[in-house]
């Protein structure tokens, strides 16, 4: 009975969405804010990757909210913890244990590369942080995860605080939260040290996301 109602609702919704899709594909795209962002991102922020300039400068407040949401997930997983005694981890095969020794630093390096170059190439703090967390996931699967959760919490909270403080620095010196233009020199585009405080923010976001996802995975693994 319930399946039948669900099917009917989905069909009705599908009909409306189909009409919407037809309307959308027949319209031409209205020029909107994207023209402004595409033309002026370099002169406003000095970033080569326009999406990064939107995420961190024009809509930097959303990024603050996003960092908060990840932090909330880590908090929630900690609250709902239901720990058992340490269960026996199945002994991993020889291939994984040897491969881990080579793969772990390579994945970490790749993740750090992604978030350090967030303003030049596609990528950024969140993507890099997720890659770093996957390196630690490898460690968790094998059973050699040794980071203490107190240190991880310290790093996480610290990185979050640094993000807010950087925004606050914009507040004090420039008069607006997360202001970018006068704080550090914008430099020339496509150089590593350019675009004001944006690369610094992304580094801290990368560290924070990496530790956070690792913490969540660790908590889920312990149960």
């Amino acid at each position, binding site marked *: 009975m319930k399946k039948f109602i669900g099917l009917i*609702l989905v069909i009705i919704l599908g009909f409306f969405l189909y009409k919407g899709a037809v309307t959308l594909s027949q319209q031409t795209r209205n020029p909107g804010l994207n023209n402004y962002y595409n033309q002026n991102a370099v002169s406003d922020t000095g970033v080569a990757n326009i999406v990064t300039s939107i995420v961190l400068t024009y809509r930097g407040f959303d990024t603050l909210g996003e960092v908060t949401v990840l932090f909330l997930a880590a908090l929630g997983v900690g609250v709902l913890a239901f720990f058992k005694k340490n269960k026996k981890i199945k002994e991993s095969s020889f291939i994984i244990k040897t491969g881990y020794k080579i793969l772990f630093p390579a994945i970490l390096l790749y993740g750090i590369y992604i978030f350090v170059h967030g303003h030049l190439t596609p990528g950024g703090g969140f993507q890099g942080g997720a890659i770093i967390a996957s390196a630690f996931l490898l460690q968790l699967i094998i059973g050699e995860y040794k980071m203490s959760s107190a240190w991880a919490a310290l790093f996480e909270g610290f990185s979050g605080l640094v993000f807010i403080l950087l925004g606050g620095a914009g507040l004090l010196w420039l008069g607006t939260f997360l202001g970018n233009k006068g704080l550090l020199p914008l430099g020339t585009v496509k150089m590593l040290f350019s675009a004001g405080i944006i690369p610094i923010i992304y580094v801290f976001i990368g560290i924070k996301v990496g530790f956070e996802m690792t913490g969540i995975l660790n908590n889920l693994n312990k149960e």
Partner: protein
Amino acid sequence: MIFFIGSFGLFLIGLLIMMTQKNVFKILLGLSIAETGVHLFLITIGYIKGGLAPIIFDLNPTQMLNTKFVDPVPQALILTSIVIGVAVLGLGLAFIVNLVKHYKTEDITKIKELKW
């Protein structure tokens, strides 16, 4: 057009899974599929015919003004939204582990202590 149909189709499939499946883990997976569909929909909206990825590859300013870029705003929106989706998924998994431990079953129809 095909992209809109595809993304809405993913969303509807995810919705169907969430409403009809009984295993709690599958319900969360349906949520994840539906979220993927919505994100694809947002990106499709940002597509401009003949546009390139919004990354400056040439230092020549006049050259930059003439190239057509794809809309970068939906990409920024889904960056945020994917992270929010991951966070909710992580929290949902923690809930599921706890739920299964308490009720000893994964069937959502049996988890009905609270009634009207």
